[in-house]
Structure formats: structure tokens, C-alpha cells
């Protein structure tokens, strides 16, 4: 376990010492702020809870986008610069490497998400929303972020470089995002399966409305677990190349 922690610490430090981390935070705050002002608040009269729902809807999108840029480098960058050889010839198990990498990126996404907190607080001060709604919405944003991050990390474990990892990761995230569209043209029982696999549509909406539903939490956690497990297996398989 300590190996995962050392890797997590080093990775987070590298991200916070390099410009890329700040550029991602800056971009997400700009996008969220813009959408908050122009759409959630500025497009006609709304109930404050509706404003908060739109904010979480926007935040879910920008978090998924950020997860692609944070996740693409996680393993592909190490492979590109040759440092993966250091980790692979150390007594670090593959799951420790994946867990360390995932944790560092997740901590970064959490920090980034925490910086958007001023927007819900503004709604709270000027309107009537419950703290529970804010908490539920952020839990949903972070769970969705973890899921898309795990998918991009899997792409990063498979790809030869960061660019391929970004394109592959983004493609996989978008495919799982649009599963609900596919489910419309599929016939049963595939219809239900595809609708269930859609990472945003059905599963995120309750959080957006302020409801933490156990089945959706389980969906996101198990989805994340499977993606991380596959990334671990992909790394293990590389020794057999």
C-alpha cells in the first residue's frame, strides 16, 4: 500500500509543479464560471434549486473533460519518457501503480472541483437551496469524474503515447456517455443494458437533483473498479510482450 502512496505523492507533486495542472484548473474554472453566469443564472428567471441543477450539469461535463487531460498522461507519459521501466523493475505491483496514479489524479480533480464551490455558495446566499443538495451534487460530480478518469487511465495504460491515450480515452468516455442514444435504437434486452451502461444520463440525474441513490453510487464505483482492474491487467500483460 505504501508504494501506491509514494507514487500518488510524486505524481500529484509533479502535476502541481508543472504548468499543465494550473492550465487545466484555469480552463475548468473559466468554462464553469461562463456557463454558470450565461446559462444557469443569466437565461431567464428560475428557482434557485434549478440553477444549482444546471450548475452540476455543467460541472459534470467540465470534470469529464478535465479527466481526459489529467488521465491521459498518467501511464503513457511514463512510458514515453522511459520512467515506466523504473516502476516496472521496482517491487511495485501493478495494482499499486494503478491505484497510486488514480489516487493522485482523483485528488487533483477533487481540488479542482472544490475551487468551483463559490458558485453553489453564491446560490445559497442569494436563494434557497439545501446544503444536502450541494453535497449530493458534488458526490455525483466526483463519482462521474472517477469513472471517466478510470476509463482514460485504462486508455493511458494501453496507448504508446499521451496523444493516443487522450484520443482513445476521450472516445471511450464519449461512447459510454452516448450509450443512452444507442439504447433508443436497440431492441430489448440490449436496450436496457445499453441504457444502464450510460455513465451520465440515468445515473447522474439523481445527484444533480440532490439525491444520493445507492444503486447509482454502486454503478459508478463498480464501473471505476472494473476499468482500473483492466488497466492493471493491461500493465501485467506488457511483461509478456
Amino acid at each position, binding site marked *: 500500500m505504501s508504494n501506491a502512496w509514494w507514487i500518488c505523492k510524486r505524481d500529484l507533486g509533479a502535476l502541481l509543479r508543472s504548468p499543465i495542472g494550473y492550465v487545466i484548473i484555469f480552463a475548468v474554472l473559466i468554462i464553469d464560471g461562463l456557463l454558470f453566469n450565461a446559462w444557469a443564472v443569466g437565461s431567464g428567471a428560475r428557482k434557485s434549486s434549478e440553477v444549482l441543477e444546471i450548475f452540476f450539469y455543467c460541472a459534470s461535463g467540465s470534470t469529464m473533460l478535465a479527466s481526459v487531460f489529467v488521465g491521459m498522461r498518467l501511464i503513457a507519459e511514463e512510458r514515453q519518457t522511459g520512467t515506466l521501466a523504473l516502476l516496472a523493475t521496482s*517491487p511495485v505491483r501493478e495494482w499499486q501503480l494503478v491505484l497510486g496514479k488514480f489516487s493522485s489524479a482523483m485528488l487533483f480533480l477533487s481540488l479542482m472541483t472544490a475551487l468551483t464551490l463559490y458558485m453553489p455558495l453564491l446560490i445559497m446566499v442569494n436563494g434557497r437551496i439545501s446544503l444536502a443538495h450541494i453535497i449530493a451534487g458534488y458526490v455525483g460530480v466526483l463519482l462521474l469524474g472517477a469513472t471517466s478518469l478510470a476509463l482514460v487511465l485504462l486508455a493511458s495504460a494501453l496507448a504508446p503515447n499521451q496523444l493516443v491515450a487522450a484520443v482513445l480515452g476521450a472516445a471511450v468516455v464519449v461512447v459510454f456517455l452516448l450509450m443512452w442514444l444507442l439504447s433508443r435504437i436497440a431492441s430489448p434486452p440490449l436496450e436496457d443494458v445499453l441504457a444502464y451502461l450510460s455513465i451520465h444520463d440515468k445515473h447522474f440525474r439523481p445527484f444533480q437533483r440532490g439525491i444520493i441513490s445507492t444503486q447509482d453510487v454502486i454503478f459508478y464505483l463498480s464501473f471505476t473498479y472494473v476499468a482500473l482492474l483492466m488497466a492493471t491487467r493491461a500493465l501485467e500483460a506488457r*511483461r509478456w510482450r
Partner: protein
Amino acid sequence: MIVAEQLTKYYGDRPAIADVSFTINEGEVVGLLGLNGAGKTTILRVLSGLLLPTAGKVLIDGLDMATEPEEARARIGFLPEAPPLYPEMTVEAYLRFVARIKGFEGAIDVAIDDAINATDLAAVRQQPIGTLSHGFQRRVGIAQAVVNKPALILLDEPTSGLDPVQIVHMRNLLRGLRGHNTILVSSHNLPEIHQVCDRIFVLQEGRIAAEGKEDELARKVGGTARVRLEVRGSAQELSSTLASLPAVSDLKIEREGDGFTLAQVVLDGDAREELAARLIQAGMGLRRLERVEVELENIFLSLTSGEPEVRS
């Protein structure tokens, strides 16, 4: 002690190494010599645990790389051809990170100091690695390979890309590691292998074509011996005297003058005594007779081309 048993590694249908077996004793410095594509890097990758062999076994201090991979890898220090460095980290922070993920259990501060002293990095200890010169970065690469005090240090082409001054520094550094560490160093740089290693494996097409100390390898090339001699008399006299000696296969006059001749002679087998007897018998004053070291380059060319070649 490091044991490799019948290691074979295929990349697709192509065997990169085939049936390679060897043992490296504690404290030995062994060189892996071979042309590009001979399988040097593959052997190091398999020994380091980076790749699993298609067949065969690697034992590091008795630990099987296949069944106890983490324990075996904890005893390895590996410098790949491109040093695995994080440019944003300082030298010290990087070595601390490496020592930790290698599971080093002793005093980490002491281990870092030792690695920094061994590689002469004290002056740049707190500098980000990305700001260091190529030569310094190579040294940081060596430092990370030794920081966890491993049972085996694997160095893949440690001098590649260095300028002549840096190569001398690197060679001195490797000499400094001698005696305290078991090292396997791969190279296509012949002088580097020659000057640093106790034993050499010559690799050819994924197999060990020859193994041994430099003079043992020289004998395997075909038993020729090259000697330098100085005699009283002219080059012509020397040439006619040696013409009747069947063991002499080549004669090269290096200098002639003041009544003396300096020459190099290639003998089939070690026929030095016979040569001396013949010269004295012919009344030529023999002033010097010494064996010239056969250059490793010749041995290497002979072993890898399959035909003995002796340069004159």
C-alpha cells in the same frame, strides 16, 4: 549470486535470445558485448524483471523472478539505455522516491548520501534533474540504480551519448563501484568493457558465442599469439631467419635503424620459446621479446564473424 538458466525470449516469431545460461558471482563485474540486435538489452530486461522470458529461469540471490517477482526485483538496480528520470524532481527527492519504491529498509538518508558520493553528485544535489547536463543525468541514472544497495546492478550502455571526457568520468565511476557491487554492463563500446570488466560474455544473434576473461577469449579465437621483438640485425636478416620457422604466420617491421630492428610477429600457438631459440641460433642479438595484448576488438570481430582475424 545471479543465475540465468536457458533463457529464451521471443518477440513474435523471432527469438531475441535463445537458450542463454550463465552465472555471475558476488562482486563480479561482467560485460555483455555484442553488436546492435545481438540481444544485450533483452537479457538485461529479462534479468531486471521488466520482461518475462518465454522460457528459462532467472534466480537473484536464490529468488525466482517468476514466482517471487517483487522480492527478486527489490534486489535489482537497473539503468536502462535512457535513464528513467523525472525532470521536475531534485536529485535528492528523486533518489528518495526511488529508494522508497524499491522497498529499501535501511536508513534512507545514509543510502542517498552513499549514492550521491559514489556518483559525485553532491554539487547538484538540490537541483532539478531537468536542468542538469547529459553527463550529470547519466550519473543520476547510475545513482538510482545503486541507491537501494542491490545485489545486482544492470547497466545498459551506460556511456552511450557521452562525450570523451564524460566517458572517462563514467568509466572511473564504474571502477569505483567495483568490489562493492555485482554488475552486469552491456556495451558495444569495446574499450569500456575491456577496462572495467572481470569477465566478458560475447553475444551473437541471441546466444553467448564466447565467455571468459580477455586472454581466455583470445585463446579461443584460434590460439594465435602476437609478440613484439627487438633484435640486432637488419629487417632482411630477421625476415630470412624467421622464414624457416613454420609457427610464424605474419611479420611486420615496426622500425629499423642503428643496426637494430623492431618487429611484430604473429605466431600460431604460443611458440615464443621456439622463436627465441631460432633467433639466438642464427646469431641475432635478442634484446626484447614480449607478448602483445591481443586487442579485444580483434577477438570480438573474430568471434562474431566466425573467422579468426588478426590485424597486422
